[in-house]
Each structure stands twice: as C-alpha cells, then as structure tokens.
C-alpha cells in the first residue's frame, strides 16, 4: 500500500506535539481503511483496484472524513482511498507526487499551484456546473489558469460580528444595520458598563481577519481594489490613483474608531483568551469567524449567540459578510489516477454529503441546490450569502511576503495609520518590481 511519507518539516515547528498527533491520526486512518478493506473484500475486490491518496487540511474534520472514506471504500471496489492529513503540500508538488485529491482551505498560497497549471481541469464534470457562479468566482480572485476550472469550492466559512443576544436584548439594542446605529449601540453598551467589543490584538491574525477585513470589506470592493493594485504594480504609491494609503484610508480610520470600544487590555489578549472571555460574557460583540463558535461553546454551551455583518456605511444595502473558501476540491495534473480521483470527487460532491458536512461544521453550501444553514448562530448571515453580498478578506488576498497582519496589528495598537499604509504600498511596489 503506497503511503506517502510524512515529509520532514524544515521549520522549527512550534507545535512539536502536532506531528505525534498526526502520527496517531495516521494509525486511526489505517484502522478505518483496514475495516473498509474488510468490507470491500466480501464483494470480491482485488483485481483492478486503484489506490489514491486524499489530502485533507482541516484537522478537526479528519474523523468525519475518515468515516466518509471508509464508507466510500466499502461501497465499491474500483477505487481505494487513503486519507492523508499530514503530508507537506509544497513538497508533494515539488517531488512530483502530490495527493490525487486535495480538499483544502483555498487561499493565496494554494493559488500559486493553480496559477502554474499544477491542477487539472474539472470543468467537464457535471458537479462543476452545480457550483454557484459567484462562489466559483471567489477562486478566480486569487489567480486563474486560462481555460480551466481547476478548483471546486466545497464549503464556505462566512464570518461577521458574533454578538451576545441576551446583552443586546437587555440593553434594548437592535442588530445595527448602519454605521451610526453601530456606534450608538457601542455607546449604549459602554454606558451600561459593558465592553462593546472584545479585542485580541496579541494574535495579529485575529485583528486582520476581524476588524480589518470587515472594515475594508464593508466599504470597498475588494477584488476590484486588488485588480487595480495588480495593474499599478510598481507604480503603487502616494501618487497612484489606487493605493492602500488612499483607497482604504477611510475604512482603516473607522476601524481605529471601533477599536477604541474594545477592552482596555486588548493588546495583551490572544485568540484563546478572547474565546473564553466572550463565552463568559465579558463583552457584547466579538469579530470572529464560525471557527470561534465551537471554542466558545466549550466554555458556555448554552450561550445564545447571533451574527450580523459589520455595518460600515449608513446604507443598509451595503451590508456584506466576509467569506473564505474553507474547503475546496482539486485534482493535480501530476496525479496518475485522475479518473479514480474524479470518481471520489463525485462522491464527495453529492449534495447530501456536502449538506451533512456543512451542517456539522457550520459551513455554507457552495452549490445552487445546497441546503440553507439551520444553526441559529450563523443564521443571520444566510440572507447576505444567498444574495451574493460577500467578499474575501483583503488581509488574506495579499502576498504573504508582506507581513500584513503585523502591519494591521501595529495600526490597531497605535501606530501612525497613513504612514503604515504607505509602508504597505512601498512593499507592494517593491514586490511588483521583483515579481
């Protein structure tokens, strides 16, 4: 049984225990696989079985997909899938033996592979036609490869403001739909002695995906901004028509205004602190994605929570939620078993399989016939998602060479905002020069 070796990670891994955990998962996977084999053994498997590897990036979803894989392996005898949640993706592509099917978070880093044609075309699969066009477009915002649909969005994570329903009700606050209402709500909460927003600036990514992305996404057309920046390239700077220091200055100043409503010790609080504090009712609003809901529930399982898009203008029609492609499917060009891989992709893309996954992991469906979400905590985002009122966070659409999270953290903790934005412009131009 070909099993991809756990690639040696070159980086001094802070989570040394992580690898041990992966090892254990690998064993668990092997057990599940073995049971799957036992089942398929009855149906006379053996000749013509094609082995494929399936790479999954979401650690918390591994047990879920282990069951799915076992079920798939048991249901037929042509394709046998091995679940892999440990291999290093870049190393796999570099060596020329990437996994046969990938189900990963789709982001800027992943887009590099697509852009260079490393992912095969799936546009002829009937499943590709079921994807909502506006969701498929999210893939193209990072990079495209001419004439190909190389990535099938599988699940979307929608993020907005998580709020404490009881606190809002007790203070007579309606869910704000305009900037003025939002500020008024913050003032009311503050007057009642409640911290309006819980900030966790110590973990820079939390500010980037929350305050920053919501502020910019609520006022600015992010893909258009990025395309214009791309166009300007080395010209991005104080004199270019589009730049960080010009185009997003206002939303970032609004962000600063909002940040002032955070807990006084926000600068020394991290993501974990924030989840616990918010679960314990230490603040009314928390700018985090659905991933935080599970963490909050660990502390306060019965806390009543809701979500609403952060209003950044005074027009309720401008409301949008932040999304990211939490999981997306692809089949590498270098795979030797593309047909088998596609069979498994079709299996995963069955509507009831997708719906079950999204229901279990608080995701939004990516297909036109997807079931709506039912969880109260994320229900508030459904109408915006259905209407296509969403954007991908700006902080996640910028080359990783630019330490955007750190810059955002600096701005929210008191650094000069126009100067920091100008620094980002300079970084962008310098990168364009090298690129």
């Amino acid at each position, binding site marked *: 049984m070909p099993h991809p070796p756990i690639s040696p990670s070159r980086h001094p891994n802070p989570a040394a225990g992580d690898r041990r955990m992966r090892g254990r998962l690998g064993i668990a996977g092997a057990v599940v696989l073995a049971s799957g084999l036992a089942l398929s053994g009855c149906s006379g498997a053996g000749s013509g079985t094609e082995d494929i590897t399936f790479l999954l990036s979401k650690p918390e979803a591994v047990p879920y997909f282990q069951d799915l894989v076992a079920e798939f392996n048991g249901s037929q005898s042509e394709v046998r899938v091995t679940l892999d949640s440990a291999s290093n993706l870049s190393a796999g592509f570099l060596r020329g033996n990437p996994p046969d099917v990938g189900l990963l978070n789709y982001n800027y880093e992943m887009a590099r592979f697509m852009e260079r044609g490393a992912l095969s075309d799936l546009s002829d699969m009937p499943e590709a036609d079921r994807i909502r066009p506006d969701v498929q477009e999210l893939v193209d915002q990072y990079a495209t490869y001419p004439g190909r649909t190389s990535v099938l969005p599988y699940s979307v994570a929608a993020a907005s403001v998580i709020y404490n329903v009881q606190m809002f009700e007790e203070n007579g606050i309606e869910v704000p739909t305009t900037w003025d209402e939002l500020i008024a709500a913050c003032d009311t909460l503050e007057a009642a002695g409640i911290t309006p927003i819980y900030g966790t600036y110590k973990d820079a990514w939390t500010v980037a995906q929350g305050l920053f992305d919501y502020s910019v996404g609520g006022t600015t057309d992010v893909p258009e901004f990025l395309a214009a920046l791309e166009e300007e390239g080395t010209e991005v700077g104080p004199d270019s028509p589009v730049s960080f220091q010009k185009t997003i200055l206002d939303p970032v100043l609004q962000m600063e205004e909002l940040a002032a409503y955070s807990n006084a010790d926000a*600068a020394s609080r991290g993501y974990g602190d924030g989840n616990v504090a918010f679960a314990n009712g230490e603040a009314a609003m928390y700018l985090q994605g659905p991933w935080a809901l599970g963490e909050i529930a660990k502390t306060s399982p019965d806390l009543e929570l809701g979500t609403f898009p952060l209003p950044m203008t005074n027009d309720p029609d401008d409301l949008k939620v932040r999304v990211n492609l939490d999981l997306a499917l692809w089949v590498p060009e270098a795979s030797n078993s593309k047909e088998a891989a596609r069979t498994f992709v079709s299996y995963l893309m069955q509507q009831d399989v997708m719906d079950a996954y999204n229901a279990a992991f608080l995701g939004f469906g990516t297909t036109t016939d997807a079931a709506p979400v039912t969880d109260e905590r994320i229900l508030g985002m459904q109408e915006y998602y259905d209407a296509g009122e969403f954007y991908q966070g700006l902080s996640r659409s910028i080359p990783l060479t630019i330490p955007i999270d750190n*810059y955002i953290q*600096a701005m929210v903790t008191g650094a000069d905002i126009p100067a920091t934005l100008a620094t980002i412009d300079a970084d962008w131009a*310098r990168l364009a020069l*090298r690129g």
Partner: protein
Amino acid sequence: MSTPVTTAAASAGSLVDEAEHGRTDHLAGARHDRRGRVRVDPIYYWFLVPTLVLFTLAITVPAVLGIFYSFTNFIGFGDWEFVGFTNYVAAFSDPAILASYGFTFGFAIVTVLLVNVIAFLLAVGLTAKIKLKAGLRAVFVIPMVISGIVIAYVFNFLFSNSVPALGSGLGIPWLSESILANPDLAWLSIVIVTAWQSIPATLLIYIAGLLSIPGEVYEAADIDGAGAVRRLWSVTLPLVSGYVVINMILGFKNYLNVYDVIVGLTNGGPGTSTRSIAMTIFTGFTGGDYAYQMANATIFFIIAVAISVLQLRITRGKAAI
C-alpha cells in the same frame, strides 16, 4: 604592589602555555614509521566517513542549492529562470530586511553582554566556597534542559497575565501593561527570555574556566596582599579571558539565529518591531518567495562566516583555551 601580582598572572599564563605544548606534541592515533613520517591508521578516516556523507547530504548540498536558487526567481516549485543579482539588489533596499538586521544585531549585542555579565558573576559565586554549591548549580542549569519554545510560551503567559496583574495589584502603572504589547519594549522581553534560557550554558563554561585556575595563583596574590576585587580583576579575569571570548562569540552567533523564542513571545510583533533575520528568511518558504529569501539567507551566511573567521583569529591568538 603591582609587580608581584603581574608575576602571578604571568606564571599562570606560562602554565597555560605549557599545557598547550603538551597537548599539541602528540596527536592521538598517530604513529611514526621507520623514516619518522607520521603514519595514520586508516580506521580514523573510516570513523569520519558516515558523518562526512551525512553532513554533505543534509547540509552542504542544500546550502549550495539554496545559494544557486538565490540567483533565480524560483518560488519553491515549477519553472524558474536566472535573474542574476536582482534578488540581492532588492534585498539591500528592502526596509523590512534591513530592519530585521538592525533588530537582530541590536538584540544579539545586548543579550550577549547581559548573559555574560550575569553568568560570570554567578560562576564566581558558584565556585567560591559557599554552602549548597552543588544544589545551586543544579538549579541554575535547569533552564538549559527546557525547550526554547516552551520557555517562550510560559513567559508569554507571565508577561501577558501575571506581571500586569502584579503591576495593577501594586499600583505600578508601567508594570500593569503587558510588555509584549508595547512596540518599543517588546524586544526587552525577548532579551530577558533568551538570557534566562542561555545563561546556564554560559555559566557552565565559566565554571569550567574558573576551576581551571590553579590555587597557587590565588595564594600568590593573597601573599601579595590583593583584595577580593583586585583578585577578580587582575587574576581571575585575565586567566579566563579565553572563556570570555568563546562565550561572547558563540553566544553572539547563536543570538543572531533567534527564532523560536520570538515565535513563542511576540511572533514578530507588535507590528513588525521584533522580526528577526531568521523569521524574515522563513517567510520565503511560506510566502512563495523562496529565491529572494535564499539571497537573504546567503547574505546572512556570509556574515556568519565572517564572524567565525574573526572568532578563529582571536581564539588562535592569546586567548586559546
């Protein structure tokens, strides 16, 4: 009074010289054949082969490849082409890279001074005839056996929670805010944690150095009437100068590579105030900027080699141990 002390120091110096001659005289494993040529048993070469092969495969080859790729636009996979010195030119004008060099060197200088002063004083204390000497030595060495990232996370908690709680409890305003959240002071936290972690190793070398000083020298100094401070300054320090140089240079080179402590404490923040060279280089792997950061790594490598050459020069001179 100054002359006798100098003699004591000089006699100690000659002791060191003699020991050295004794050592260089006879190479281990070397035999003289009939004509007096040195003949080395081939088994000694075979001892070296496995290490040599591993070293070549695991270090030399990747390093050479890395330097090679620094002249290309390679992003980690796929096609690439040569771009000459573009990466190097860009690196020298990149404020982020320059800032990381500034931070790292400043950090290394401050840390190496702090570590050596504290470790030396501790070593002097721990080699004196004090009670509980063995127990205290064991206690002081404990930080050495804990992994850097663990230490960093523990201190992260202390700096973010315990120290501010203490500060606000005592009503000291500057202590009640987390040092990690202050862009101007966050680097101090990294100095403190690195020092805490690396003092033991430095301490051990100093203890070894201090123990190697023969008692007669102190007796001579005593007879000459030198006090404790004078003994430390004119006898002890000159006699351990070799150890001081070794500790300074090895420490400095180590601190230039600072990475895990920063990841555990500030992750380069707040803002970009504590991004070290190693962290900047590492972004090349995650950010698809492989070739560019390879150029940065090559520059860093050349600097490290320069420091090593300097170290060899100095230690070969008067300060040999």
